């Protein structure tokens, strides 16, 4: 049995997201082999009924998006599709930036976003995690549920994602960072 098969079996058995690190611990193989195995698994899942979703260092399995209607009918829980303008803006920043601090979101939206972020966190669409680059602050990230509602396997599949990278890598983004740093130094991070 190869590593790719093991990863698939493990994800299926668990039925929940697993980190690459955890996979490497459980299967007792190095990170490189895990990464290769995941790439192979992605390939062999193409054209199948299940898909591999990916975000940062976590992966999980889900049903193919084309079957959305069928599963919505089968599952009893009612889905909430309502998104206010504020939610849309906030999700757009989080998805296309692939995570942002509250200060960054406030900076771009021009309004305080704490309540909307809380509401989105409660809905399971975003999560608050400690920033790996600076452990004194939090960043908000898209969850698998959010990717699932968007019907994408990863943020890279979002429409317009590729084009965006060029457009945003400009001075305004840099300026934003400076400005936020200035504000964060003078204020409580959360």
């Amino acid at each position, binding site marked *: 049995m190869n590593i790719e098969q093991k990863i698939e079996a493990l994800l299926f058995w668990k039925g929940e997201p697993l980190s690459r690190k955890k996979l490497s611990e459980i299967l007792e193989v190095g990170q490189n082999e895990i990464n290769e195995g995941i790439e192979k698994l992605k390939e062999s899942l193409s054209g199948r009924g299940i898909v591999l979703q990916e975000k940062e260092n976590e992966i999980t399995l889900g049903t193919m998006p084309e079957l959305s209607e069928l599963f*919505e009918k089968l599952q009893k829980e009612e889905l909430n599709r309502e998104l206010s303008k504020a939610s849309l803006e906030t999700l757009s920043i989080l998805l296309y930036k692939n995570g942002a601090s509250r200060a960054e979101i406030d900076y771009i939206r021009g*309004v305080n976003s704490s309540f909307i972020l809380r509401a989105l966190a409660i809905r399971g669409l975003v999560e608050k995690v400690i920033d790996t680059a600076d452990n004194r602050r939090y960043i908000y990230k898209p969850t698998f549920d959010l990717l699932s509602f968007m019907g994408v396997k990863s943020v890279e599949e979002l429409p317009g994602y590729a084009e965006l990278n060029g457009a945003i890598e400009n001075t305004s983004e840099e300026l934003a960072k400076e400005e936020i740093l200035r504000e964060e130094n003078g204020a409580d991070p959360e």
Partner: protein
Amino acid sequence: MENEVLENAYVIKTAGFEGPFGLLLNLIEARKLFVNDISLAQVTEDYLKYVNNLGGLSPAEVSSFVVVAATLILIKSKSLLPNLALTDEEESDIKNLEDRLKLYEIYSKLSLNIKENFGKKIIFAPLERKNDILVFLPDDQITKESMMMFVEGALGRMPKKTFLPEVEVKKVISIEEMIDKLTARIQDSLRMNFKDFAGGAQTKEERVVVIVGFLAMLELVRGGILNAMQDNNFEDIIIEKSAPVELEQVEIIVEN
């Protein structure tokens, strides 16, 4: 006439801009312009009219509109009076607003993709895997005392509904002062540079009317903001222009 104005005010209000950027972008796009200092100067008056009619918003929301209003007023003043000297801080506030608005525009456009696709083709996670083994596996950390502590902690961390960050309050209070100072500077600059006004497309007089109209507007904005901040049962204030008076005032300023 009055009814018509009232109706218009109502339309703007219910358009429901949560923050200043949405409103600004909307005003700019309605004129088919791009985001820059020129377009911002063009929409300043409409923006201020809207701010003047802010009702039913929380103080925090009002203050976010007001902070941006302050920068727009600078932009407008500079466009009316190119010789008006701005401080470095003011220049950077202007640049900053433009940059932020451009960023907001990008994400706001991208949010249409989310609106379009959200919940259309959903990827479903598997149902809970059934667990046949019935077990009871507690943890020594679970005690009567620890449970009380945890629930108290959770309740304590819940946000309180109404708040206005102190920083924002300060910004709102200082806009009144800022308008006063700016009004003085514009009047000053107007007196100093009246002779230098280039003919161009506008005559001196036309130009002065515009500026003075703007100063009168500032006066109204100040009142409107204070009202929005102070009065919860705030009713719409309609701006009425009375141009003739203004020209007389100009002459006084110039001769002084």
